[in-house]
């Protein structure tokens, strides 16, 4: 390997590569899964009359959707925490790693927002209006 070329330093100790990749992609995957779950659930519930009874004082669908949203949010926040933690271990000599970690952190913030906002219509709108 030619180290005279302008390459990043090796991954520093304390940075787990799987955490870096997880922090980069988890938010995207979880948001996509969340959308592809809560949206069809709404349609199917209205079409097939699923979740007819209340759970914990909420319409069954609302309860399930909030549960899914909270789980999704927890995973994205964990991914964001990984990214935040990784960037603290990095120096400017790890510019590419730092770039990835910051990108992961920012993306997780965006997707956490997108997922969290879904709670508002779930609670505020009629289930099959």
């Amino acid at each position, binding site marked *: 390997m030619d180290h005279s070329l302008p390459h990043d330093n090796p991954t520093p100790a304390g940075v787990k590569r799987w955490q870096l990749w997880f922090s980069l992609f988890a938010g995207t995957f979880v948001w996509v899964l969340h959308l592809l779950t809560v949206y069809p659930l709404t349609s199917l519930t209205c079409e097939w009359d699923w979740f007819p009874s209340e759970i914990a004082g909420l319409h069954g669908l609302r309860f399930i959707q909030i549960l899914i949203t909270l789980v999704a949010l927890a995973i994205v926040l964990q991914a964001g925490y990984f990214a935040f933690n990784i960037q603290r271990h990095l120096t400017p000599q790890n510019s590419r790693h730092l770039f990835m970690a910051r990108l992961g952190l920012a*993306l997780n913030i965006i997707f956490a927002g997108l997922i969290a906002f879904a709670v508002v219509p779930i609670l505020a709108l009629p289930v099959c209006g």
Partner: protein
Amino acid sequence: MATTLSAQDNETLKQIWQPPAGILSFFTAVNHRTVGLRYIITGLTFFILAGIAALLMRLQLMFPENTFMNAELYNQFFTMHGTTMMFLFAVPIMEGVGIYLVPLMIGTRDMAFPRLNAFGYYVFLISGIVLWVSLLFGSAPDGGWFAYTPLTGPRYSPGIGTDFYATLLTFLELAALVAAVELAVTILKLRAPGMSFNRLPIFVWAILVMSFMIMFAMPSLITASAQLALDRTMGTQFFNPTNGGDPLLWQHLFWFFGHPEVYIIFVPALGIVSTVLPTFVGRPIVGYFYLVLSLVAIGIVSFGLWVHHMFTTGLPILGLSFFTIASMMIAIPSGIQIFSSLATIRLGKPVFKTPLLYVLGFIIIFVIGGITGVMVAAVPLDTQVHDTYFVVAHFHYVLIGGAVFPLFAGLYYWFPKFTGKMLNERLGPIGFWLTFIGFNVTFFTMHFTGFAGMPRRVYTYLPDLGWDMLNLISTLGSFVLAAGIGVFFIDLIFGLWRGKPAGDNPWGASTLEWATTSPPQPYNFASIPIVHSRDPLWDANGELETYAVEPYLGRRETIGTSVLDARPEQRVELPKPTITPFILALATAFTFISLMVNIVLVPIGGILIALSVVAWHWTDIEDHKAKEVKQEPEGALPSSAIISSKGRHPTFWWGILFLILIEAVVFASLIVSYFYLRAGAEEWPPELVGRPDLLLPTINTVILLLSSIPIYLADHGIQRGNQRRLKMGIVGSFILGAMFVVIKFIEYGNVNYAYGWTRTAYTSIVWMIILYHTVHVITLLIKTCVVGIWAFQERFDSERNAALQVNGLYWHFVVLIWLPLYATIYLSPYVLGSGS
């Protein structure tokens, strides 16, 4: 390795890379700059045609009850205008700009798969020509660019026009996908040493994001247009509600592609803006990291918006609200782009040359389009303005402002690079102002036309509805706009003819495409540049460090680098000029057109395609019979070749990986189609057909799963130099794969699926899934045959076996993808019951 080449080496390079001359060049050239320019020129030609169609429509709408054209012709014109602008202009031209510039910007000599690149262009050209020729014969599609069913189904659009749309769109998307794979692999694997991801030019980031968006979005359209074509030509029932189909399935599949499509066009345009701007304000772009973030975020979030085109289809309001959230949130990353541009201008010293004028025009127009975008993201407002001229105004602001203005900025900016000549700085601003004023007069007015209630797609209207003056103003504005665009084209032609010599870097720009001559030498760079920063030409002060790749063996070669950090890994061999891409494109076109005209001809098309593929690979086989390929010069990077390659994953491994990604999305679209149709069915499967038997399919599934084991053992065997295990593994997997196909045929010969795939939506979707997967297994068997022959000729060894790895990768994919298909078709009717 940081050296430069001798003058003799440079001359050798020139001979190796020189494209063919004369008329033959059109059929054989594979060089990225030739193909890229062809995309651009052809795209601009279609832009002119679509523009003429628009002007004629505006003439018709100029006055109420006008008789300039009849309803049928008007329908064909607005369909051709939309289809051309979206599919034949915007996407191909952005890809063309990428194909021309990406290799130069990342400091390499060509694209990863030059022949595939040329193939994509021919497919694009043939599709476009056939579509437009259909208009000449009065048989153009007339159901709008998004071709809603049931309007475009066989009952309400009985002519051949929509067949052209459905079939040619499926064909045309091949070109888009090919270019996307090509661009993504080139960016991932052929970057100049040192160009790690945090040093990638913004335009290259944009093209990378666009490529992945195309790979995720287009397969959904291919599935939908194939289903529409089958409904129309074969009599399947995907969209026919009387037999279990659902017209809304089309909308879901179409808009899952259609909304990202807008961003597929817009994202590279943002890349152009962020490349042009720094040059004309004399400072690096502000917020590089945030720009990359916004590009990536736009690329992802754009896939969560598709239902906002379906707000008025009666879906539950709660479901719609999830898409409202995403539709409004996407304004944030889009806003980052605008604020970055404004901050860059504020902190720099702007020089108001023509490219910068178009960038400023983009900012103003796109902001207006963005604001109306947020407006229509709200369900109540969208319900009011849906299908009115307000929406027409909105998407023209987004698409013309977001794509055409940046494109014109880019063409002014890179014209010296393309031709070595400058454009006229007197004509440029005139063209800009006419375009800017004409555009706003035409389309800003349409907001009011829409609020006044005028629906889109009506060929005429009654007087005194409050629309007369507004339409007249729009029509007058459209001619001013056309004049501006006309000046732009005159400037291009005048520049080609009499333009002043540009020099290598006339704007004093910072990115690598300006590090070589204008226009570049056939090989782009004699020595590959080494990159230390995001603005290599500004930071290097004219002393760009280089990495030499000797013209070894008289082959076309460039450096293959690692994905993340761009460390040199391989010498990537690239093909010479060849006619095979053109022949393959003709054969593929013949097959697709046969689907419309006479299905009996399809097998002939299949044979022609197979022969073309053999011819395509023939030169590889001949090339790599040469012993020298294994004898590399001392200290040289290992060679990456089609048949025998060593080192880290070569470019074609990445190509196959992306092919798998595309295929996975197609299969996912088919599974979604199955469950979507199932969700709306009262009886699933229909009683007439009954639930599928489980025994034979389950045994067959086990056989297919087992077939992965020998291929795995074969791959691992050869990595230890075990030729016997390689041969046995290939033979074993081939036998098991063939057994799967034979049992499939027996199964469907006997059971009541033979009832026919055209009777109900259930049988249509089941047959489509099974046929599609079986075709994959058969293709895999043919592929394995070829690899098996090479294995028995002992062309592989422990170091050179990439073709086997690739074959194995694809084999495992085809096996694994069967599991969800098996669960969908065979298990779900038992698990989920028989209907709603």
